[in-house]
């Protein structure tokens, strides 16, 4: 059995940052493995531990810089990785879910996985669309926002819980091959071991261009026109003067509100 995990590198902005045109200046950004994808990767590794004979392959759309993040996944236990990129992709300011889906589908057609796991969303863009768009592109079945997975590999059925709003879960059976988008909290992602980190350096990491995957990029359908810090409608009364002084003032307010032991 083969599990393909889509992994994104995401940008986290510092508390204080400056916007430079249509992007946040690189000085204020830290790049890391997307939290949701970390859970997806862990789920794939746990499937291998439970079922044996499972190959875990990660796929990333991203520049060379992302290889550090991709190695993190290899260190945690992915068997090999694929990175898709070229200059044309680098020139886009916004990669829409349709384009991502066609690139990832190009990889999936070569790899023919039984199961594709994808994070529900990326922390930075939060479109939340890649996994389900990929399923449609491939003609696979799918389920979005999965927080529990039981796989019956023999019958080819994934029994999942989908986390709906308000503390309700939907129980759904999905036929394989399928794409599942994985919600945080589904498992406890491991940290890479020192041995894993060493091994990751020698695991295969192939780089492919859209052209090599047979994917032709169309005209961009979305483009950024502006980027700004949201205007705050903040109307906060701040208590100041250090922890003790501010705690004293807050205690006074709480007593006024009838909070008292």
């Amino acid at each position: 059995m083969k599990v393909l995990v889509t992994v994104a590198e995401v940008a986290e902005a510092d508390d204080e940052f400056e916007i430079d045109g249509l992007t946040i200046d690189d000085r204020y950004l830290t790049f890391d493995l997307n939290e949701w994808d970390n859970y997806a990767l862990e789920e794939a590794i746990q499937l291998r531990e439970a079922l044996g004979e499972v190959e875990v392959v990660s796929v990333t759309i991203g520049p060379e810089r992302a290889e550090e993040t991709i190695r993190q996944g290899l260190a945690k236990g992915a068997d090999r990785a694929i990175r898709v990129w070229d200059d044309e992709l680098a020139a886009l300011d916004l990669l829409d879910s349709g384009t991502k889906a066609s690139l990832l589908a190009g990889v999936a057609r070569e790899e023919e996985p039984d199961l594709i796991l994808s994070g529900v969303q990326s922390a930075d863009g939060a479109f939340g669309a890649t996994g389900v768009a990929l399923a449609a592109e491939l003609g696979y079945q799918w389920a979005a926002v999965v927080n529990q997975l039981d796989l019956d590999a023999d019958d080819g059925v994934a029994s999942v819980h989908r986390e709906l709003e308000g503390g309700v879960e939907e129980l759904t059976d999905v036929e394989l091959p399928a794409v599942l988008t994985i919600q945080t909290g589904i498992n406890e992602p491991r940290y890479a071991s020192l041995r894993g980190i060493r091994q990751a350096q020698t695991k295969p990491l192939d780089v492919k261009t859209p052209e090599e995957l047979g994917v032709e990029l169309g005209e961009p359908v979305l483009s950024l026109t502006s980027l700004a810090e949201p205007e705050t409608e903040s109307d906060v009364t701040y208590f100041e003067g250090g922890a003790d002084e501010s705690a004293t003032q807050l205690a006074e307010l709480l007593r006024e509100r009838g909070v008292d032991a």
Partner: protein
Amino acid sequence: MSDVLAITEHRRGELRDVSFELPTACRELAGESGDVHLAVIGGDVDAFAAELDRDGVDVIHTVAEGEEFNHDVYTQVVEALVAALEPRYVLAPHSVNGLDYAPALAQRLGYPLVTDVVACDLDGELTVTRELYNGKTEAGVAVESELALLTIRPGEWEPAEGAGDARIEAFDVELDESAVGSTVTGFEEVGAGDVDISEADVLVSVGRGIQEEENLDIIFELADALEATVSSSRPIVDNGWLPPDRQVGQSGKQVTPEVYIAIGISGAVQHVAGMKGAETIIAINDDPSAPIYDIADYGIVDDLFDVVPALTEQFS
């Protein structure tokens, strides 16, 4: 061609609030001359249609297929509706179920998709507003296409009000059952524990800023001193430090206490959705730019590990 179609959402016999917000967003895009079409798929469609018949809605298409949401059914039905109506824009809720069919639908229709839209500006070309960089920025996104599928963030548009005079029409669609590859087998309520945070008058709520599980002690000590109940944001529950029934937010519980003290909580939109109805909101967070301060009434921008014990001290 400036008609707009929106897909409403219901669950377990009730329309969700965003279903009433969709027509308002539709009208913005349809202008005065375009028609606002709503689709109601599954469940008691006639009752839903009657409820949705509000000011500004022109046509409501009912499709009596199944009781609950199924993404294969929704995808096929909307594809057929789009073929019949040729709307310029299709709107869906940015919800867990919206995310389960909108991307597939966009792919099949060949429409560009923009999700989690918070505002639209149609001036010849459509430009929408959505957040980027984990909510720290707002971006304008131009849609370079005549057609588009948008998912809208719940709570951003006012609900449509008043009695409407929409045409209510049953829409017939021939479903390809062989393409339905998933089956909903049931629902489950999570975390029915002994604490009901939605009943508490005072909530001491803890987030990622607490850093370590053992640090929760200072939160429980404060809650004890205030005779308050402890709740949390999502990461605390994801880490397994508190049970799911303590989680406030979109995927957790909605709470409306008299006093809500958010400690080390950044205030992501999913969290705020669950607590913005609190009477008094107090934030303790050392990041002055944390979005929690956009909705807080009172704030202490300082290290929670200093402030929380000092506050507990005041009540001991």
